[in-house]
């Protein structure tokens, strides 16, 4: 991250020029296969000798339990929900991502702030606030967006994990049942992601393609970012 920058009002106590690693985010709605592709990318990068860490949404030590509790109770208002995600993100950012970037690692982020932005946008007319909240997030070196249409997505989710309350946006009362609600909610999310893809310059990958094609396309986007970025000597499982 040679010219590392923050989205808004940054972390005043962190010097962005210290962040020598690369930050790569993989975005997309639920069920597009993000985590599978991130696993494959990690393996591929480590074989080449890059130090890699991955970080995933709501996986922080501090917050994962709290977010589960909040969701289980369904008591959360829009602000609290967005702020819980922001806290989780900040905790992972400062305890995992920034230290890794300082040491020159490649950080693969399974979802980034765009997920939080999309979720907040579909719940509110005020589009400024949530962007301000996430102002402290560094702008990634690369964002790959696994895009899928809602019809294919619905089938995939039913076949695998099944539809759940939050992925269906049931708190928004968009449809009469889980299926209707899921489709309406995910359509709105996809719409928001499409808008952000233009605004923030995502690299859009068609998630309906075969896993091999998707991997190759992702690698094609990642390679130029890693040019002039030497592997960390001795770091990472594949590096030795």
């Amino acid at each position, binding site marked *: 991250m040679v010219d590392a920058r923050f989205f*808004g*009002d*940054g*972390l*005043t*106590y962190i010097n962005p020029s210290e962040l020598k690693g690369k930050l790569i985010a993989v975005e997309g709605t639920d069920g597009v296969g993000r985590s599978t592709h991130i696993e494959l990318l990690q393996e591929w990068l480590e074989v080449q000798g890059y130090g890699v860490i991955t970080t995933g949404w709501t996986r922080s*030590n*501090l*917050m994962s*339990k*709290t977010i589960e*509790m*909040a969701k289980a109770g369904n*008591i*959360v*208002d829009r*602000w*609290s929900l967005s*702020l*819980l995600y*922001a*806290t989780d993100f*900040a*905790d992972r*950012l*400062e*305890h995992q991502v920034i230290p890794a970037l300082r040491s020159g690692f490649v950080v693969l982020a399974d979802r980034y702030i765009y997920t939080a932005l999309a979720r907040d946008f579909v719940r509110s007319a005020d589009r*400024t*606030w949530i*962007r*301000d*909240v996430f*102002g*402290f997030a560094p702008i990634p070196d690369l964002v790959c967006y696994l895009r899928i249409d809602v019809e294919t997505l619905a089938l995939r989710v039913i076949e695998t994990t099944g539809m759940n309350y939050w992925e269906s946006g049931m708190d928004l009362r968009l449809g009469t049942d889980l299926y209707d609600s899921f489709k309406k909610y995910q359509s709105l999310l996809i719409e928001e992601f499409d808008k952000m893809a233009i605004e923030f310059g995502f690299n859009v990958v068609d998630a309906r393609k075969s896993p091999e094609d998707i991997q190759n396309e992702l690698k094609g986007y990642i390679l130029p970012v890693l040019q002039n970025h030497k592997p960390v000597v001795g770091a990472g499982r594949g590096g030795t």
Partner: protein
Amino acid sequence: MNEPHAITTASHPYPGKLIIVEGIDGSGKSTQLQLLHKWLESKGYKVFFTEWNSSELVKETTKRGKKSKSLTPTTFSLLHATDFASRLYHHILPPLKAGMIVLADRYMYTAFARDVVRGVSAEWVRKLYAFAIKPDMAFYFKVPIEVAISRLLRGTRGQFKYYEAGMDMNLSPDLTQSFQIFQSRILTEYDKIVDEFGLLTMDATQDIETQQELMRTLVSDTLRGYKPKRGTYGRRTLFWRRFDVHKSE
């Protein structure tokens, strides 16, 4: 993307009244608010009390984070904002909409002072709270740091707590000294906030009774014209009993 927010400067549209107190630890603000609470209730007002960092959802997390000392200035700030959002939604807005008087021990100004001293951007933390509503009255209990320290050490609280003393900032290995440096910086921030948001400054070195008398006079002025809803007066006890709801007054 970076337009200033008007939300925190406009008055709220609800029939109730929101009165808040601010000040460092040991300024006596909580004592004053308690006395005001008693007085308002004795006058027949319906009053709801809420305090900083007390929502069920966030309390446990904050406690866990403080215990493991893993909180950063940003997560510290975000957790408190989450707590505030949750309380605003569940505890502050409903009574205000119902026409009650809401008393808040600390409000967003606490974050503006404390989080900025911890190192987050002053602009960022103000934007974070853009969803908050402006209180009808905001009291700031101004006290010199020495007075606050002597009150706290004489009191029942015993030792200063780790985060309360700003020990996470490595200001001094000595707890009392760290508290002094940290809280002095907070006082400086409060001074800026008083001007920026027009808080009413109270001389917190005065006698408890003197301060309370002034506070009651000022609150009386603000409440002139405020008509609490009569509602089910007289039959109220019966009404609540029927639904077996805990009586808060």
